[in-house]
Every structure is written in structure tokens, then in C-alpha cells.
């Protein structure tokens, strides 16, 4: 088989539509008789609902309906638990509390929807939302995650006696023995605060109930349309075949658009059926800051036990994870933090205990990295601190602790978010580190450049951090591939797509198998009427799981093509080749048949076929990996800190990345660039500031700073390939890697720039202000005014 496309920097199939403004997004779906929705959302973080008065809203001209929780009757149900806790962890506590469509009796975060207004236009709907009066008897807001678990914190869910949402302990070996053997034990408290994914497109739903065909169609900015379809059908008492969920082009996902059963997602289809009219709700940016899920709040108490020569004997960390007001996504995020704190290092003894706290803040679910960066931040920071104590370079201490290439598969003996033991399938970490050190010019920087620049009064520093990322988890994805009479090939898959280039990378896989032009492979994805099995796009799994399903379906179709062509061309299958959209006899290119003609022959409309014959050149396949595959890499950067303003400029950024076999390096580079930009945003710009009443103080793009083209540096990328043995294509996921190690690398570089007299930095996100405070805190003022 030729691999003309696999591994090539192919331009994307989907670009033309996007570049000409023709790509359909949810807000582009319009119907003449469409209704529009606005929500009245809670202004209090915590309190009892005493009274709701919607009479003025109902009277406003153009208002069609106003709904409160009471009006929903039996349809009012807490949302489903999307990911149950792993059944295999002993002693696990999990207090399942999931979000409700409209708050009843109690509100639990600012922005929680209380009333839904339906009107002839969005403008009128918002006017009417302004007419609504809700009286809340406020309760003290639970904001700080450590205080949330204290005895005197008021419980957010009245039927629980505390705000403990979950408690999990996992261990490997015996940490206490490690401490006894250790020459050095380091203890630190580290903090990671909240940010938001801020996809450029906000969420949106259009629901259209067609009473005549008895069908519900929902356009939804979801990353998991099939799960949403199945859930909605069950909730609404419809057959799954009566519900079609379409996730069209999505303007960025990054996690929070996953299968949430957000209140709006559940309410709009219901209202469309009730009112028998199409209905639309598009989240505005301010709503997005409350109504879309967030991530990142954790506090860790970590301990690292080492030998004198810098070998890690054990790691212990206790942490509290901020769950927000409800925990529909189970324990995915803290389990990721737990697993990723082990990093690429051979840690013989591990003790990790976490508690999840309910807080009066928006719901927490995975956002790019999904808890992995917390774990990576902890272990990378602890190693840096240990290296300083032991007078080792940050490079050397990592080198001494890497899992060695011959040790794979490497079993960490704890349970991962996919319920399977955390086993790293493959990797080779040291060469990746060497490559990064070389690319950033580590030695030269330390020996020459840094002293020279320091002599000029400049504060420059270097940072290097390593990471692993569990990617491509199950359960499974599927695909159906059909050769059409035109000779074009269609691929239907269930995963949604949010800009990852699936229309191209998947087409590359198919084009190579079937010998067609990559532009003649047409992907349909995210439409449940086209394909209705699968889980969705998350956990860097699209390329791995759906990619392999597509590969396997393409292999099947290829077999069918060869079999039929061998009959028609009267040649042995081994003598045939697929190229240029034809099957032909090798060395006799005149003896050929177009795939399109062959497809017609495979679908006869008259005459008889042999019993058991399946029509068409079509195959459906599924791929379900046994467990996730482990991508890895190293980030290195050089920064300059302005001692006057504490602004940090990234001068150089290097990523060395191993995600197994690469389908399209151009697309992969883009994924990494975008991830690093989000990682740097997370490190230095982006932080959600809640006050003690649970009011978000920076709910706009004026105040919540996203990195711009002037903040994100040019990046150099080194690719390194260790093939995954867990799937035929040898690929590993790549979607989140860019974002994961940026913060610890950044912090190490900033510390290095500020020098011995500077602060030890144990928190993320930073900002110029925060850095200034930290610096002043240790007395390095540098000010001679």
C-alpha cells in the first residue's frame, strides 16, 4: 500500500468552506417562525428562592412563554451522571449531585438559570428577562476550597452534612518506607486557580420539533452529539430514531462543550415540542463566564522523598479539588491530576489522597488538559525545588528519574480515569529531553548568554519541563465508509469536530487505503442521522480512536474492492493495485476499472446476487482500545522579566513532542501551538477572580485576559516518534499536550530569571501583579528611586 498522504503536511479539506464564510455554525441555523430564548439567572451564589414573579414578563408584547422549574413538571430532573467514579477504587466516597434544568428552592452559583423566557426575538426575550423579579434569601457563599470543607461551612446541598463531594485514596508501594530511606524530604503547598476555556464561539442550541414527521432536530455546539441524542430521546419519551442531533462546525471546544446535558440543552428541545415551533438560544459572552463549565481550582500539599543523588523514592500529595456547585462529570479531572503527578518518572512509592469540594461557583468539568496540568505542575515544581537543594541542574534531576525505554509497558499500579490501571504503553523520554535541551541552547544560555545579559542588568531565565499525557482512551468509536457511484468516498463517523482537522486527517487515512485523491474523501461527522454509535471528541482521543476505526473500515472496503475487481478484471487480487481512483492490473494500466463503476456493479438493481452478498463497496468498523496510550514531551523556554513592570516576555519556546505516528504534521503543529498559547494564558494571563460572595469580578474579555499575537511567542517544534503498540496506526493523541507543561516550565524560567534572591513560586496563574507581590514578599525590590 502506498502511503501518499499519511504523514504529509496536507492542506485541509474543510478550509475553503470556513474561509469563505460558508461553514455552518449553530447560530447560522434560522427558520422563519423561530422563537428565541433568554434566561433569568441567579445573581446570588447561594440562597433560598423565596419568590419568583414573572407576571410582567408574561405581559410583555412578543413574549410567548415563561417557564420556571414548577412549569417543567416531571421533566424537571437532575442531569445524568456523565462519568461514574471508577468502580475499582476501594473506599471511594462519591456524593453524586448533578445540575438541574432550572433552579428550584435553592440557587447554588451566580448564573444558575432560574427562569426561561421564550419570545419572538432575542431582544424581546432579554427585555422580558429584565421584567422578572426573584427574591432570594441569601446564605453565606462557599468560595474558598479549603474553607468549603471546614465544619462551619454551610452545606451547598442541604441533604449532605458537609461540602465533601468525593474522597479518593490511591497508593503504590509504601510512601512511609520511602521517607525512612530518603536523604531529603521536601514539603510544599501548591495552588492552581480557575480559568475558563473561552472558545471563540459561545454555546448555542437550535431545536426544531416537526409535529408532522414526528421528528426532533437539534443543532447543538456539543462535542458528543450521539450521547446527547440518546439522552434527549430518553428524557422526552421519544425513540432515538425520532431525534437527530447535529453538531455542525463548532468554533472551538476544548472540553466544556462535551456531553453536558446543560440546562439549555435539555430545555430548548422540550420547549420546541411544547410550543411546536423552532427555538434558538445562543449564549452570550457574559453568560459563558457563568453558564459554561470551568476548570483548574486545586490546592495540593505535596511531599517528595529523594536520595542524595536526586533519585525520587516517593511522592505524596493530598489535594482538594474544586468541583463547583455540581459534579456531573464525576472524578475525571482529579483522577487525571492524581495520575499525572507521577509524570514520566519511575516513582516507586506513591500516596495520593484527594477530596472534591462543592463550592458556590460554576460547575467544573474538563478543560484542555483536564487536571493533568495540576499533577504535572506539582511534580515538576517539586523536582525543581529538590534540584536546587541538591545542587543539581533541573535537567539532570529529570534525567535521573525518567522511566527507561526498556521498562515499557510501565505499570503505575493506580487506577486512571478510564477505570483501567495506569499503564504507560510506550515512550522514550531521555532523547526527547536531549533534543529540547539542544534546541533551546541550554548550555550555551546558562554559560554565556545569561551571564552576559545579567551583566547588562537584564533578568533572563530558562525553564525546562517534561510531561506525559494519557490520551486516546476508550471505550470506542466507529465509522462507515462508502465508495459512491461518482467514485467519491464518504466517511461517516460519530465524533464531533471543533477545528482539529478531522476532515483532512481522516481523509488521509482513507485516501491511502483506497488510492483516491484526498480531496475526494468526504467526511460526515457529528450528525446522528449519519452515524449513531460513538462517544465523542475528548481526552485527545479523536485521531487515536476514530482514526483507527476509520482505518479499519477502509481496510475492509479495500478488501471488497479487490475481491470484486478481481472477478470483473479476471485477475488475481495480488496482481491488482489501487491508485488514481481506479483498480488496475499492475504493469497493465489499461486493464483498469474506476472505483465509481465498481461501486455501481456492487449494487445491481436487476438480476440476482449470490446469497449473503452485501450491496455496495461499504464497510462499518469499530475500534476500542484496551487502554489509553501515552504521549509525552518536553517544553523549554527562555524568558525575560522586566523588573519594573514584572511583565514576562517569552523570548524563545521549544516543544519536543512524541505522539506516536503523525498523520498530518501541519495539523499537529497547529494543535501544539494552540495548546501552548492556552498554557501560557493559564500561566500568566488568565484567572477567574471570584469575590467572597461568589461574584465573578472579571466576566468579560476586557477583564479576563486572553493571550494575543503579541503575547504568544513563535514556537519551534521537534517531533519524536515512539509508536503506540495499542493501535494499528501507532498513533497517540495530541490535542491537549501543548497546554499541559507550559505553566511549570514558565514558572521555572521566571524563577531562574529572578535569581537566588527571587521568590519560590508555588502557584498558577501568575500575573504581573501577583509576581510583583511575590517578589516584594521576599524583599527583592530592586528599586532605587
Amino acid at each position: 500500500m502506498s502511503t501518499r498522504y499519511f504523514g504529509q503536511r496536507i492542506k485541509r479539506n474543510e478550509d475553503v468552506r470556513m474561509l469563505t464564510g460558508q461553514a455552518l455554525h449553530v447560530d447560522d441555523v434560522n427558520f422563519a417562525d423561530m422563537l428565541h430564548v433568554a434566561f433569568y439567572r441567579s445573581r446570588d451564589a447561594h440562597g433560598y428562592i423565596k419568590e419568583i414573579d414573572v407576571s410582567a414578563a408574561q405581559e410583555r408584547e412578543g413574549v410567548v412563554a415563561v417557564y420556571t422549574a414548577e412549569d417543567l413538571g416531571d421533566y424537571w430532573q437532575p442531569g445524568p451522571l456523565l462519568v461514574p467514579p471508577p468502580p475499582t477504587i476501594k473506599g471511594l466516597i462519591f456524593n453524586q449531585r448533578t445540575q438541574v434544568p432550572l433552579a428550584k428552592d435553592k440557587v447554588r452559583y451566580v448564573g444558575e438559570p432560574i427562569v426561561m423566557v421564550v419570545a419572538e426575538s432575542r431582544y424581546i426575550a432579554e427585555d422580558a428577562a429584565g421584567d422578572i423579579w426573584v427574591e432570594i434569601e441569601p446564605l453565606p457563599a462557599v468560595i474558598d476550597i479549603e474553607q468549603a470543607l471546614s465544619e462551619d461551612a454551610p452545606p451547598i446541598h442541604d441533604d449532605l452534612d458537609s461540602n465533601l463531594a468525593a474522597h479518593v485514596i490511591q497508593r503504590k508501594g509504601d510512601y512511609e518506607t520511602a521517607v525512612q530511606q530518603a536523604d531529603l524530604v521536601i514539603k510544599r503547598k501548591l495552588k492552581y486557580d480557575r480559568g475558563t476555556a473561552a472558545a471563540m464561539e459561545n454555546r448555542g442550541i437550535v431545536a426544531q420539533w416537526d409535529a408532522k414527521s414526528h421528528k426532533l432536530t437539534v443543532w447543538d455546539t456539543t462535542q458528543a452529539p450521539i450521547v446527547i441524542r440518546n439522552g434527549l430521546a430518553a428524557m422526552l419519551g421519544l425513540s432515538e430514531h425520532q431525534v437527530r442531533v447535529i453538531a455542525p462546525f463548532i468554533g472551538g471546544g476544548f472540553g466544556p462543550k462535551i456531553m453536558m446535558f446543560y440546562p439549555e440543552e435539555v430545555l430548548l428541545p422540550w420547549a420546541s415540542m411544547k410550543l411546536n415551533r423552532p427555538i434558538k438560544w445562543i449564549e452570550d459572552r457574559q453568560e459563558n463566564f457563568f453558564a459554561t463549565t470551568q476548570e483548574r481550582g486545586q490546592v495540593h500539599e505535596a511531599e517528595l522523598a529523594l536520595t542524595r543523588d536526586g533519585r525520587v523514592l516517593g511522592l505524596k500529595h493530598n489535594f482538594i479539588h474544586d468541583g463547583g456547585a455540581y459534579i456531573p462529570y464525576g472524578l475525571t479531572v482529579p483522577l487525571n491530576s492524581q495520575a499525572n503527578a507521577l509524570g514520566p518518572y519511575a516513582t516507586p512509592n506513591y500516596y495520593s489522597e484527594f477530596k472534591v469540594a462543592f463550592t458556590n461557583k460554576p460547575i467544573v468539568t474538563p478543560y484542555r488538559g483536564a487536571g493533568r496540568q495540576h499533577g504535572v505542575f506539582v511534580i515538576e515544581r517539586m523536582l525543581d525545588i529538590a534540584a536546587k537543594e541538591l545542587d543539581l541542574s533541573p535537567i539532570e534531576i529529570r534525567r535521573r528519574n525518567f522511566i527507561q525505554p526498556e521498562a515499557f509497558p510501565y505499570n503505575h499500579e493506580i487506577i486512571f480515569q478510564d477505570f483501567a490501571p495506569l499503564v504507560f504503553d510506550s515512550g522514550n523520554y531521555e532523547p526527547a529531553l536531549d533534543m529540547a535541551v539542544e534546541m533551546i541552547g541550554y548550555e550555551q544560555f546558562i554559560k554565556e548568554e545569561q551571564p552576559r545579559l545579567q551583566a547588562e542588568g537584564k533578568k533572563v531565565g530558562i525553564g525546562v519541563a517534561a510531561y506525559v499525557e494519557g490520551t486516546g482512551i476508550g471505550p470506542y468509536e466507529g465509522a462507515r465508509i462508502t465508495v459512491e457511484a461518482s467514485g467519491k468516498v464518504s466517511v461517516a463517523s460519530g465524533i464531533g469536530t471543533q477545528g482539529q482537522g478531522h476532515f483532512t486527517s481522516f481523509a488521509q487515512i482513507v485516501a491511502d487505503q483506497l488510492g483516491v485523491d484526498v480531496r475526494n474523501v468526504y467526511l460526515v461527522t457529528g450528525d446522528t442521522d449519519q452515524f449513531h454509535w460513538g462517544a465523542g471528541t475528548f481526552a485527545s482521543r479523536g485521531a487515536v480512536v476514530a482514526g483507527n476505526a476509520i482505518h479499519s473500515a477502509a481496510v475492509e472496503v479495500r478488501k471488497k474492492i479487490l475481491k470484486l475487481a478481481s472477478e470483473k478484471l479476471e485477475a488475481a487480487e495480488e496482481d491488482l493495485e489501487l491508485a488514481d481512483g481506479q483498480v488496475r492490473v499492475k504493469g497493465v494500466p489499461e486493464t483498469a476499472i474506476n472505483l465509481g463503476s465498481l461501486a455501481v456493479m456492487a449494487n445491481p438493481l436487476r438480476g440476482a446476487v449470490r446469497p449473503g452478498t452485501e450491496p455496495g463497496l461499504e464497510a462499518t468498523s469499530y475500534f476500542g482500545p484496551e487502554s489509553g496510550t501515552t504521549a509525552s514531551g518536553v517544553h523549554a523556554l527562555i524568558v525575560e522579566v522586566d523588573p519594573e513592570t514584572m511583565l514576562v516576555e517569552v523570548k524563545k519556546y521549544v516543544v519536543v513532542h512524541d505522539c506516536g505516528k503523525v498523520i498530518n504534521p501541519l495539523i499537529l503543529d497547529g494543535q501544539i501551538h494552540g495548546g501552548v498559547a492556552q498554557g501560557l494564558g493559564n500561566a500568566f494571563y488568565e484567572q477567574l477572580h471570584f469575590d467572597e460572595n461568589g461574584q465573578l469580578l472579571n466576566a468579560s474579555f476586557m477583564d479576563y485576559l486572553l493571550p494575543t499575537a503579541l503575547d504568544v511567542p513563535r514556537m519551534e517544534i521537534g517531533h519524536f516518534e515512539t509508536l503506540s503498540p495499542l493501535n494499528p496506526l501507532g498513533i497517540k493523541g495530541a490535542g491537549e499536550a501543548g497546554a499541559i507543561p507550559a505553566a511549570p516550565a514558565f514558572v521555572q524560567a521566571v524563577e531562574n530569571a529572578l535569581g537566588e534572591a527571587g521568590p519560590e513560586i508555588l502557584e498558577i496563574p501568575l500575573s504581573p501583579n501577583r509576581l510583583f507581590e511575590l517578589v516584594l514578599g521576599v524583599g527583592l525590590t530592586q528599586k532605587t528611586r
Partner: protein
Amino acid sequence: MNTLHTITVTINGQAYEREVEPRLLLSDFIRHEIGLTGTHVGCEHGVCGACTILFDGEPVRSCIMFAVQANGHEIMTIEGLTPDASEENLHPLQASFREAHGLQCGFCTGGFLMTLLPFLKENPDPSEQDIREAISGNICRCTGYQHIVDAVKIAAAKMEGQ
């Protein structure tokens, strides 16, 4: 508030006459009254740049203008860059974005293109820093900007002779 005003706006060379409420945003007018949905809205408060259009040739943010302010003016949107949205007829700026993989989800892209079109006219040979400054008012959450900057360099080279 509900009194309707008749406005005439030329968009991508075609004149449209509509009756609108004075509070109707220009972005909503373009997207939902005229149906040109290639102009995207990411923040509705003038920060992200996704809704950028050309207003009498100048880039402006359509989410912080009212439709009535466009009465008698000429607008160009992303749909106006090509005659027919085909691959062959892509504007060199669009083709360069494709070549350099300057877009992922594509939601921000229209705003970038409309910002860059006049920029490249005035700066036919921009440096990397010039480009970064020119797009610093447009937010892209997917690309990390590097491929966008590359795309602009390619576009500048392509468009020079034109």
C-alpha cells in the same frame, strides 16, 4: 424603541433596504436580517474582533455598532472576498491561510481576514512584528497565532504584484 427606521446599506456590492429597530446591532443585521452568517460574533463587546467587517473600507467591529449607523454606507464581509466560494477563486489572503494552516475551528478567521485586507494594502511588506501588532486586536483561541502570522507573510508575497 420600537419605531422602525428604513435604512439602505450596500453589502458586498449589493444594496439592501430594510426596516429596522434603532437598537438592532449591525452584526445581528448582517447575520440575521441579511443572512450573511460568515461574520461571527464571539463577545458582543468589541474585544475579540471576530465580527470585524469593512465599513467604507475601514475595519470596524460590527457588534458595537447599530444597523441604523450603516445607513448609506458600504460594507464588505468575508463573503465578499470571493465571487463564488470555490477553491479556485479564493482570494490570495484566503489561499494563504489555507496554505499555512492559519485556521482551526475557523470561528475567528473572518475577523482576521477583514482586519488584514486593509492592513496588507497599506503594508505590502510587513515584518513579523508588524503583523503581530496588526492582529493583536483579534483573538484566536485555537492557533496560537503562529500559522496566522505565517499565512500573512505568504499573502504579502502573493499580493505584492497585484
